[in-house]
């Protein structure tokens, strides 16, 4: 067993390193986009099949976030980013339970703890178990929130939340807010990464110890964890957006 925090490097495209997680991100994107194309290829006023499912999903999502944001207009404005987060993360998370995970790959000689070892480089690894992926999502979430806040309440007013000389208390509160934004980055990325990476390791270990039947409840658990993490990420983004865009 060879488990690393970093994703395994598979090959290069024009000196650009392609890792297994990047590959799986593309797979997840392809899955989501093919669903999107299938749903909206022939739109009918009386929905059927995939279109019906997509409509149900979108309506449920909108109805879910509307009471949080308080208005239909805001809900429509922030729905695209939230649903993109949710779909990408949940598909990424669920790729974790794909059969063959951690076992399909190529053997390669790597240096481990000072000596050469022959290890399996897996092709399949959930994107969420790569810190690059989760950090990228966290960066997008935090920066999108900041820009939405500036767009909603104005640059100076929004900036005064972080840098304020009105009173010493305000000044320190602003500093704390600034630190909390950085903390958000870390909490967003490490929460998702930690959950899914741990789940992946758990599945690999269980798979090695008892390959049949026993992993089933763990697979179910990981499906649930994957859903919860996707929900948590998108809901936190939503709540931060709400806080940033409301002029309190």
């Amino acid at each position, binding site marked *: 067993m060879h488990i690393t925090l970093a994703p395994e490097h598979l090959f290069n495209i024009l000196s650009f*390193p392609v890792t297994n997680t990047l590959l799986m991100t593309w797979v997840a994107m392809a899955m989501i986009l093919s669903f999107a194309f299938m749903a*909206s290829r022939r739109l009918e006023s009386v929905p059927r099949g995939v279109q019906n499912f997509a409509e149900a999903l979108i309506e449920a999502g909108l109805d879910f976030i509307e009471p949080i944001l308080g208005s239909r207009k805001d809900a*429509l404005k922030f729905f695209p980013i939230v649903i*993109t987060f949710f779909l990408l993360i949940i598909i990424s998370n669920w790729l974790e339970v794909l059969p063959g995970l951690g076992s399909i790959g190529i053997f390669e000689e790597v240096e481990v703890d000072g000596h050469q070892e022959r290890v399996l480089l897996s092709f399949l690894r959930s994107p969420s178990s790569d*810190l690059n992926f989760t950090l990228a999502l966290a960066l997008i979430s935090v920066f999108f929130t900041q820009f939405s806040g500036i767009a909603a309440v104005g640059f100076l007013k929004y900036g005064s939340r972080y840098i304020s000389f009105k009173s010493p208390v305000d000044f320190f509160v602003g500093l704390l807010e600034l630190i909390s934004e950085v903390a958000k980055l870390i909490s967003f990325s490490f929460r998702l990464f930690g959950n899914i990476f741990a789940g992946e390791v758990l599945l690999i270990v269980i798979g090695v110890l008892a390959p049949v039947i026993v992993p089933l409840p763990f697979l179910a658990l990981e499906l649930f964890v994957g859903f919860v993490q996707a929900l948590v990420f998108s809901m936190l983004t939503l709540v931060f957006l709400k806080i940033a865009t409301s002029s309190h």
Partner: protein
Amino acid sequence: MLIIAAIQAALPLALLGNNGKNVQELIRQLGIDWKLLIAQIINFAILFFLLKKFLLKPILGLLEARRQKIEKSLKDAERIEKELTEIKEKREDILKNANQKAEEILGEAKEIAESRKTEIINATKKESEKILEEAKISIEREKQKLVDEARGDIAELVILATEKIVKEKLDEEKDRELVKEVLTKIES
């Protein structure tokens, strides 16, 4: 296992030490690579815009259109129902009015007929009375005429008879007595 070793080695150093080299080591151990990071950000951006363009925009448009359609249908249904009630009310009103008018007309017609009837009856009565009166007068006149004629005839007859008697043989005394008797008879 490498993971435990990595965390054991990297975390305290990164958190406690302010050495840039340790932070770099942590980042390397975590597998953070700016090239991959940017690639993932671009991936997300692509997914976001494609989803927005190909899934959300058309379906949200469709949902909105459907919502408006349903709203319009409901409004239309309400309007139609209202109109229907109005029409019903109007129809009832018209019917009621028509009934009332018909009754009025009938009443008037009856009245007119009644008055005509009495008029005609009165006129007829008057006419018949007049005719009766005229008939009476004419009968009376005829009777008078007859009486007069009869009186004339009788007088003539009397004179003729008298003459006959006188021609036969009559003395003065007898003549006088006779005339007296005749006159008395006539007067009575």
